[in-house]
């Protein structure tokens, strides 16, 4: 953190960080200056004029987004004249606005709406004809644009120029005919497109996927981590339980984290929330017949007890560190071999230098921390002599060659599949036990840059989806410890890199296991 300086906001002395603009410096101490066009990741543009503030001694109102804080600076935000500055800009902003709030997805998280309510504007003085523009424009990549709702802050345009460097959008025309548009026949086409929906301060950019699905005020948000790849972008899991329906996830949104993903996330990761709702494994099997979970579990325990020393366990590289530790205990309990083999999770050429990683496993780093082997040959040689194979949500069918090879190796063996989704093994295994997926349990994962982050439980599923550690405890006949606190204690004691983790106070932005907390 750089030097602190003292300034005065509405008569109150404050210490703020030197070298920042007013918006950032004050937001760090909890004061929000209304703004549209400024975005910390995109820099200032100065077009919306929403951030005009009164600075003592300055010639006229100043835009906070391009005003660096200075020692002794005096700023007024809540005075009547300062409020008026904002009211006037809002009045201009709204004269040609369609006031779609009742049918606008952004309602409830719209800056224009929020600032309007704050400013207490009431009566419209606009009696001339409004400017009409186009609505429901398909911009590509699932981005839908409404030109009438747009405040022309150019955030979307700047995002595609500065961040993805694909520049699909521009603002054409002048005056109140100005509008955001794509080039003819050239829709938005990049892997981060849906970020424009988040950075749009109003409802001018909406997501085809989310449109009209939920009013945002009905949803709850949990802070978690995307499991789409090894980057582990920080996210919000937005979910809701509608009457007579199961609770479900409606969207993922990036959660700001300077250590990991900045302000953004990729589209694939964002839309991977669907996997939490779709193709879920809900039924248990024993002896190739659908059975109750408990029956399937007892059957598995019987099989394992009979095959002591001859069982192989293959754990998912995306399970939490705690779950991996429990898997280790389970393997030890049955004197079996534990593998974290997951080459199939690596998709060559699929990474980029923004966020996306080739490795689609969320927690490969923990396999190493816990000393779980990922070696293919060792797994194969152990499988050759095994009688029972327990696949702990590791998808061995991700590549065609793995699928073929492991199917052959599993032939004639008892296969127990514990999983959250209906992958191939859910059909072929003789014993199947469903378990929760990552929006339904808590724990930690460590990303490709050794940053440990917390996964939180957003959704409490019914009994068919016990948490993986509960399933594993049951598979041990409740002989091993699976309770989170106990597992963590054990982790701190046995894994040097985790010795310092304060499990009750993991920072929201994660813990850098290489460099400590940031």
């Amino acid at each position: 953190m750089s030097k602190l300086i003292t300034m005065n906001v509405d008569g109150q002395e404050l210490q703020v960080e030197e070298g920042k603009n007013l918006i950032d410096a004050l937001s760090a101490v909890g004061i929000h200056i209304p703004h549209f066009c400024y975005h910390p990741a995109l820099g200032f543009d100065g077009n919306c004029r929403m951030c005009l503030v009164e600075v003592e001694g300055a010639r006229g109102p100043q835009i906070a987004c391009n005003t660096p804080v200075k020692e002794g600076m005096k700023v007024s935000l809540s005075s009547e004249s300062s409020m008026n500055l904002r009211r006037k800009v809002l009045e201009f902003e709204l004269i040609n606005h369609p006031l779609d709030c009742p049918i606008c997805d952004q309602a409830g998280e719209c800056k224009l709406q929020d600032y309007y309510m704050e400013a207490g504007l009431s009566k419209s003085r606009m009696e001339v004809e409004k400017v009409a523009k186009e609505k429901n424009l398909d911009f590509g990549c699932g981005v839908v644009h409404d030109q009438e709702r747009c405040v022309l802050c150019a955030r979307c345009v700047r995002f595609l120029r500065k961040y993805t460097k694909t520049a699909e959008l521009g603002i054409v025309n002048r005056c109140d005919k100005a509008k955001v548009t794509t080039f003819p026949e050239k829709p938005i086409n990049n892997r981060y497109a849906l970020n424009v929906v988040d950075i749009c301060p109003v409802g001018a950019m909406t997501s085809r996927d989310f449109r009209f699905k939920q009013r945002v005020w009905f949803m709850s948000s949990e802070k978690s981590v995307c499991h789409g790849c090894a980057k582990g972008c920080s996210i919000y899991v937005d979910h809701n339980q509608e009457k007579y329906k199961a609770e479900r996830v409606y969207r993922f949104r990036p959660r700001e984290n300077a250590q990991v993903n900045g302000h953004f996330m990729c589209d694939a990761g964002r839309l991977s929330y669907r996997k939490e709702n779709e193709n879920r494994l809900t039924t248990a099997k024993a002896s190739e017949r659908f059975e109750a979970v408990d029956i399937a579990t007892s059957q598995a325990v019987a099989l394992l007890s009979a095959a002591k020393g001859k069982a192989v366990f293959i754990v998912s590289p995306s399970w939490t560190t705690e779950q991996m530790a429990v898997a280790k205990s389970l393997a030890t309990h049955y004197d079996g071999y534990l593998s974290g083999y997951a080459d199939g999770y690596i998709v060559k050429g699929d990474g980029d230098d923004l966020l996306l990683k080739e490795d689609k496993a969320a927690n490969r780093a923990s396999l190493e921390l816990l000393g779980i082997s990922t070696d293919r040959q060792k797994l194969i040689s152990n499988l050759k002599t095994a009688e029972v194979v327990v696949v702990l949500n590791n998808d061995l069918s991700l590549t065609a060659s793995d699928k073929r090879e492991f199917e052959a190796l599993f032939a004639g063996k008892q296969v127990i599949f514990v999983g959250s989704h209906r992958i191939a093994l859910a059909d072929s295994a003789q014993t199947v036990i469903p378990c929760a997926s990552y929006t339904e349990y808590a724990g930690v994962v460590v990303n490709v840059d050794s940053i440990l982050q917390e996964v939180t439980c957003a959704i409490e599923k019914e009994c068919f989806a016990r948490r993986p550690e509960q399933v594993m405890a049951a598979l041990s006949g409740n002989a091993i410890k699976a309770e989170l606190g106990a597992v963590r204690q054990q982790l701190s004691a046995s894994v040097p890199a985790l010795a310092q983790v304060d499990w009750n106070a993991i920072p929201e932005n994660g813990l850098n296991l290489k460099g400590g907390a940031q």
Partner: protein
Amino acid sequence: MAVQEVKVLSAKYGIKDSRTLAVARAHGGYSQIEKAFSMEPAQIVEMVKASGLRGRGGAGFPTGMKWSFLPKGLDKPTYLCINSDESEPATFKDRQIIENDPHMLIEGIIITCWAINSHDAYIYIRGEFVRQAEMLNTAIDEAYAAGLLGEKACGKDFRVDITVHRGAGAYVCGEETALIESIEGKKGQPRSKPPFPAVVGLFQCPTIINNVQTIASVPYIIEHGAEGYRKFGTEKSAGTFLFGISGHVNKPGVYETELGVSMKGFIEDLAGGVWKNRKLKAVIPGGSSTPIMTPKEVETCMLDYESIVEHGSMLGSGGIVVLDETVCMVKSLKNLLYFYHHESCGQCTPCREGTGWIYKIVSNIEAGKGKMSDLDLLLELADNMEGKTVCVLSGAAAMPTRSYIQKFRHEFEEHIKLGKCPFAG
């Protein structure tokens, strides 16, 4: 004493083929190059400072001072941009320089490049100036052929290249940072400042932007020195100015006078007074954005920066418009606002939305559909639009609005009361 023309910038006007290099040279063109190159660049900057030359593009900023804002010792090129966008209604003085004496501008550019250590000058010329762009290019070609421009400009060990960049028809591109964006090939819209172009300008490099007339004044200053230039004008408004006068006068045109002459005298002595023996109703003194003046204000006003400000308006770009008694002020304002609405680049909320809103209100009044409360609303909207935007185009729409309503409110009220235009036959 009658107001008289002086011939500093317009010395070659009227001479046959004054546009050509040969004729220009025969009348003193490029005669100051030798002297300028014998001076230290800093000396020239000081001389221009001392001459009191102020920018002729509208804001009247002291030219030498602007040049001295260039950062020293930067490892980047410095660019010179000549603003020849000249798109403000009523302004048509720069095109006269290009049509009559482009070599004076080129000479000014060479000297300025030396003074500010720039090797690349861009002349940004209004898109509609097709003929003028051709003339300029012809003159530049001649100058290259004669070795005045190029790797060894005027035979010195100093490169000067000039590029003419044609605009695409946007008034806002006359604003210096919009001009820069436009040269860079982007949509012409002003940049938020700071940083100022003297520090971060064209291609992210230090850049000086000056008006055509400003730079064309430089050779004279070199020749006659700061004191020679100061012989013209007033203490604070030194030198001469090419005023363009149009509207309801007998002899519209461009006349060069020293600054500080009487506005009324100028209208009467040089432009032949209000036409058709009609009465004067109003004067726009310095391009369409400057607040309108009443005959009473015109009576005592002098054509210099200070006097016009004292009389509630601005010298601006020196484009004087004379309106006679038959003019409908509501319609006149509507006409101006149509322009500012159309030309707003649309990035700042108050300007993008405000110019359209006030245009529509004034249109309604003009059509007899106005309300009395519209007048105060217009005044308030003008306040809300001014001083709150990236560039002053928003203010340029607000200033006429305010002054028209304040000074000619009765005409607006009459439209509203009658439900129609009292001037419409």
